């Protein structure tokens, strides 16, 4: 049920993006949603053929999740590029993003370096978890930049805020999983549920907010400026 909802919402994002003529404007976001929908279909196919407890499903699930997390990270960087475009700072943003991605991968490697068994599997899980937290910090920085630079594009603001909520939920869920290892089944179920929120919010942003709509971001700051 949740899987179906999530898949439908991901397709809805793509349809809404095409309808609102912003598919190419937010191309990395659209590509992420396409990859996410394709991965959902493949996961279902593998689940159907090999079963939930199979090795095939286990590997595909975690490896595709790691790739999707990297794709989402790149989508977030593309939002940075949108915000910093007028300052001609795209090069620095891209360089910084590559550096941070490499640093996160190195950190993940160092954390599990001692582990002998299933090294690569542990690496992709660790990388995903760390990237969610890095993504959250970067979204927070991006939101600060939006407020500081007085970015007014409503659609862009909603995309960033939705991403912030999504990363926060995942990072909190991973932290709870590490604190209470017994709650892993509940945490996995919550992962599925949280996964629906981002496509829902993005579909809404593409569907309801005109691409050239503007608003004063100072009114959105929780602390009055």
């Amino acid at each position, binding site marked *: 049920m949740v899987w179906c909802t999530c898949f439908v919402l991901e397709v809805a994002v793509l349809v809404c993006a095409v309808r609102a003529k912003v598919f190419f404007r937010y191309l990395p976001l659209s590509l992420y949603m396409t990859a996410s929908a394709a991965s959902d279909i493949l996961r279902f196919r593998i689940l159907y053929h090999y079963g939930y407890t199979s090795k095939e499903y286990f590997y595909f699930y975690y490896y595709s999740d790691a790739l999707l997390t990297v794709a989402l990270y790149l989508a977030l960087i593309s939002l940075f590029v949108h915000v910093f475009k007028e300052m001609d700072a795209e090069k620095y943003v891209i360089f910084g993003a590559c550096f941070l991605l490499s640093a996160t991968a190195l950190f993940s490697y160092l954390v599990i370096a001692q582990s002998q068994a299933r090294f690569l599997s542990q690496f992709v899980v660790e990388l995903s978890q760390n990237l969610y937290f890095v993504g959250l910090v970067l*979204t927070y920085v991006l939101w600060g930049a939006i407020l500081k630079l007085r970015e007014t594009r409503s659609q862009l603001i909603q995309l960033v805020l939705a991403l912030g909520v999504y990363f*926060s939920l995942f990072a909190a869920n991973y932290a709870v999983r590490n604190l209470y290892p017994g709650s892993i089944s509940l945490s996995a179920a919550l992962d599925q549920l949280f996964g629906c929120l981002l496509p829902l919010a993005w579909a809404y942003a593409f569907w309801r907010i005109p691409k050239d709509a503007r*608003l004063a971001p100072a009114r959105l*700051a929780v602390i009055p400026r």
Partner: protein
Amino acid sequence: MMAVVILVFSLISLLLFFLSYCRSLVASSTKEALPQEVVDVTGITHPSSPDDFSRVMQLLRLCPDRPEERGKLRAITAYYRFLGLLRSTLAVIVPSLKAWTDNERAHCSYFAALLLGRRIAFSRDLFAQQMMH
């Protein structure tokens, strides 16, 4: 230890992003003027009172439903309840938060009143169409 730090940071940022997201949904409505019939029916002006929300919601339920506004209405109701929760818990410890939550709740009431105006206009259109056929 690290997991606790991540959890706390995630929860704080979740709260900030969630509040800002809800505000971005409401922000578009604050410039819009209330239709005269809504002012007449509800007595709400700009700015409205934080406690008008439930009264406006009752009036909204009396009007024919507009499917395209269901999502917005649910989101704003959730946000209003969340603010109510903040007001009765955290605002007791931090008094400045009370004024802020009241201001936000008033925005929610105003937003709901705007939706009421749209529903009244929608009902009138429906009625006019029926009369024509």
